[in-house]
């Protein structure tokens, strides 16, 4: 009874807080000064057509590094919790049913396309919506499809770990290169900015996003594989 009353009371309080937010809301007619600086200076300073990427990768690059670190720690935690124990013989694995011909064929056809889409999303992060996290999640969903269709499939652990650690390391190395050759940590301007709107432009941004995409993709795939068995 008391528990129910507490829940109701906290719900009402939460509703009041949000009611005040909604009641005092009036749509902005102009960008605030920081946003305006990003929008006007971003394409000129950094050469990125996608402002979101300019903010995520360069202006707030350190935050993105922190996000990648958080993801790494949670993936490591999942790995630690779900590490494979030697199973007793009586709970020997039931043999999973092999998947149907249709699913197998669809996977063989779709998997390369999904990987290409993921790579497209993170390499074009500075031009079109999307970027490292989205592309990495698409790569991992490709791996997920593979694991769902073929329960016996196993990722090459050495390759996954090597890709994951080298892309994380490469991300930091690119950041330090920016510190040494340009304005600061994760500054993308130590490579030429190139022509605005082309694939090889915006300095180190495509490199950084490709590294983030690989890291996120391999990490999520490792988590998925751990969950599977």
């Amino acid at each position, binding site marked *: 009874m008391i528990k129910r009353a507490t829940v109701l009371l906290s719900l009402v309080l939460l509703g009041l807080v949000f009611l005040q937010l909604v009641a005092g809301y009036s749509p902005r007619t102009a960008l605030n000064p920081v946003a305006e600086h990003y929008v006007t200076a971003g394409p000129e300073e950094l050469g990125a057509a996608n402002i979101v990427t300019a903010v995520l990768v360069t202006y707030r690059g350190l935050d993105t590094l922190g996000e990648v670190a958080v993801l790494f720690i949670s993936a490591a935690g999942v790995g630690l919790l779900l590490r494979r124990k030697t199973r007793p013989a009586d709970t020997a694995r039931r043999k999973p049913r092999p998947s149907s011909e249709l699913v197998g064929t669809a996977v063989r056809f779709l998997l390369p396309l999904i990987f290409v889409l993921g790579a497209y999303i993170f390499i074009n992060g500075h031009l079109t919506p999307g970027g490292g996290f989205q592309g990495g*999640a698409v790569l991992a969903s490709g791996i997920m499809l593979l694991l769902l269709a073929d329960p016996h499939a196993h990722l090459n652990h050495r390759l996954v770990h090597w890709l994951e650690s080298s892309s994380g390391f490469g991300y930091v190395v690119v950041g330090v290169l920016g510190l040494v050759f340009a304005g600061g940590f994760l500054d993308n301007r130590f490579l030429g900015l190139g022509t605005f709107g082309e694939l090889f432009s915006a300095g180190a941004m495509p490199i950084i996003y490709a590294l983030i995409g690989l890291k996120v993709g391999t990490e999520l795939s490792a988590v998925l594989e751990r969950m599977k068995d």
Partner: protein
Amino acid sequence: MTLFLIGLALCAGIIVSALLAVQLGNTVSAAITAGMASLFAAITYVALAAPDVAMTEAAIGSGLTTVIFLYAIRRTAEPPQE
């Protein structure tokens, strides 16, 4: 007016699927309705001109999270009596 109605329908979709996810007794259906809530949210983000966030929400919120929930349900469910 039509846009407003579409937005209203999308928000109603988020709320209804979230409530279903809490209320449904079957854990598998609950996981899937939670994924549906994410999907409605992703469409709302597209309507609000935030495609970057929408892509993350669709890929992680409704894709990977749902599957991780399903794997977790399978691992924690009682083994079938044979």
